[in-house]
């Protein structure tokens, strides 16, 4: 009798079993609570744990509330709402332990509603780097709401809204009924300048198709091409970093680096080490696939400022395109600077090897 050896099907997929986390951010009054309330009323969103910052601020519809305790409540659609008073890490750990002990619902998604003034980066970093959370959760999507009445001014006046837009995977434009078509077009153009890779949609009164906001992050290591493209946002024409020469505000930049040849993992990590050490705060977000010498599938990398998720290897390349592609969203770091760094470190390492 022959016995088969352990094959890929007999090992765990490092991504597939993780609970997706969506971060809903946006400036004060941009409609985050309205959006969350609407989403929770959708039948497919009936097992969500919502984490909000302040009970006073959230205004989860009274009609949704079934049982309340000091800091957690069960909503009558089956969802759970809890208030973040202390540490997000602790709350996420606690939620998972309580789920496992059967004390709360078997939630299958977490939605974190940040305060309007919040910088989403630390929230994202929590998910990318906390060893306990990495075993249970994955960052699925950063949704930034943009209030079309106030955003044009806020984007000029404050840095937080710009960063919220820059870090987003999805942009949701609210209150567009209060402005004209021209103003809306101008706002859309402005958002595209800041973050050309994040698709934007208009939502009135929080009405939006949940499909736009979920399953954005990679869900499994044998991801299909469309899943990788959805995550990287490569399906539009503004990603090469050259089409924005006309921009009047060059502070936030989005560009893609491509390398056709596989590189050594050492070169990649050294480049990232140098970048994070020297320009960490300005390296807003990095995500992409790296073709590493000797690996059959690409390495998935994602980072927020100076912190990176542990690298993951995909089971296979999702398409014949086996080139490294890295999306950078930076503040005042140009494409040329990063490309030069890769070239220099690549050359040094090649010299060493020779």
């Amino acid at each position, binding site marked *: *009798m022959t016995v088969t050896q352990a094959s890929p099907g*007999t*090992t*765990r997929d490092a991504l597939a079993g993780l609970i997706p986390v969506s971060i809903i951010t946006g400036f004060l009054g941009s409609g985050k609570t309205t959006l969350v309330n609407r989403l929770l009323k959708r039948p497919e969103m009936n097992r969500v744990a919502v984490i909000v910052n302040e009970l006073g601020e959230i205004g989860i519809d009274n009609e949704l509330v079934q049982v309340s*305790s000091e800091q957690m409540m069960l909503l009558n659609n089956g969802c759970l709402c809890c208030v973040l008073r202390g540490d997000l890490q602790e709350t996420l750990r606690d939620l998972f332990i309580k789920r496992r*002990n*059967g*004390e709360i619902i*078997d939630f299958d998604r977490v939605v974190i509603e940040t305060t309007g003034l919040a910088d989403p980066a630390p929230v994202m970093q929590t998910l990318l780097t906390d060893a306990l959370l990495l075993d249970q959760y994955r960052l699925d999507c950063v949704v930034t709401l943009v209030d079309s009445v106030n955003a044009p001014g806020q984007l000029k006046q404050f840095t937080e809204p710009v960063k919220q837009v820059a870090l987003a995977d999805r942009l949701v434009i609210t209150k567009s009924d209060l402005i004209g078509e021209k103003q809306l077009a101008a706002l859309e153009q402005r958002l595209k300048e800041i973050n050309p890779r994040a698709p934007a949609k208009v939502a009135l009164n929080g009405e939006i198709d949940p499909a736009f906001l979920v399953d954005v992050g990679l869900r499994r290591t044998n991801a299909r091409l469309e899943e990788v493209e959805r995550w990287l946002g490569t399906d539009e024409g503004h990603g090469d970093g050259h089409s924005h020469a006309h921009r009047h505000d060059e502070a936030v930049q989005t560009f893609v680096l491509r390398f056709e040849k596989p590189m050594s993992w050492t070169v990649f990590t050294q480049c990232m080490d140098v970048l994070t050490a020297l320009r960490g705060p300005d390296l807003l977000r990095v995500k992409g696939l790296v073709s590493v010498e000797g690996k059959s599938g690409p390495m998935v990398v994602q980072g927020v400022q100076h912190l990176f998720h542990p690298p993951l290897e995909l089971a296979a390349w999702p398409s014949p395109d086996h080139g490294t592609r890295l999306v950078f969203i930076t503040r005042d770091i140009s494409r040329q600077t990063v490309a030069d760094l890769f070239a220099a470190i690549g050359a040094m390492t090649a010299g060493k090897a020779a």
Partner: protein
Amino acid sequence: MAVEGTLRPGGGAAQLALNMKLIAHHELAGFGGVGEGINMQKTRDGRRILWMAHESAPKNFTGVDVTDPRNPKLIVQTDLPHNDVRSNSLDVVGDIMAVAYQTKKWGLKPAGMDLFDISKPEQPKLISHFDTSGPHSRGAHCVFFVDGEYVHLTSGSPDFEPTHEKDDQFYRIIDVRNPSKPTEVGRWWYPGTRKGDSAPPPPRHPKFDGGYRPHNTNVYPQKPNRAYVGYIDGGAWILDISDKSKPKPVGHLQYSPPYNGFTHTVLPLIERGYLVISDECVRDNGEDWPKLTWVVDARVESNLVPVATLPLPSADAFIKRGGRYGSHNLHENLPGPCSFRSETLIFGTFFNGGVRAYDLTNPLQPKEVGYFVPAAPKLAPKGSAQINDVWVDENRLVYAVDRFGGGLYTLETSF
């Protein structure tokens, strides 16, 4: 974060799940109490039959056609001759099924093992009965049969008089190459458990005297010269069986006391040199907690070193659900055309803790990757599900069974 009460509809006996989805549930015609023998037959006409031995009388075994896993169909269910015998354990190789029989009291019959021809699964045909009854025997508790040639049996014998009545079963190797005439070719027992042994009888467990008997006696075709034996209060043993007539101990791990005994299954991860060893929880309401599943470094067989246990949710939370809570059976990586085999993904059952899956890629730090705890079955005597055994097929569908009335749960995994 303080929470009063449970924040979930259905309260404390509700279903819990992570990365395991129920795709079918079969109550086995009202006899949903299954023991710890599950195996799948692939019939000559391509059907997939899941065979299950019952936990207790009146039913003997049940065959369910799971060719369409979402639509299981019961095709045969057999009866025991009386209520003082149980089958509990079975295994299938090709068209032959071995079933164990253990009596409630010493000296009763039938005690031992049956071999059935299941080439027509609807009509199992008895090939032979291997009688192990005797004045000091309760017959056989467990069969391990995967190569079509030898059954590794946990059983008493008419010629075996134990030094303590609970130590009546021992490890027997039965040649079934001629299935109509099973013959013992070798045996091994814990030194001191048989009258006349030169070794003194082993000390009883001070708190829970479970006895010195083997439970599972696993032997794999990749390593045919080794038997991996859980010996209840006698710990875990590795036996060299290159000469089947003279099994020789080469490794032993005893961790009870201080732990609470009842070593059950010793599952080797043969390529990696680790063992996964489960204890059985045998008392309700947390009385014998903790009953754990251990990860043991066995790279040097003569020096077995526990390096981790499979992480379990809070005992406080689960003990309250009622019945037993703690380790029991493992999916055993059996050979055979339909069985799942992995050196890193381990499935175990934990009574009211349901069926749980672990990733042992890092053996020092096992990770729980999925679980399914059914809601309390109708009329559940303990007020909770008591998941007893698990078997996983090559498509990673999980078949979990309840000890009392819950029957068969078929689960899809997503990790």
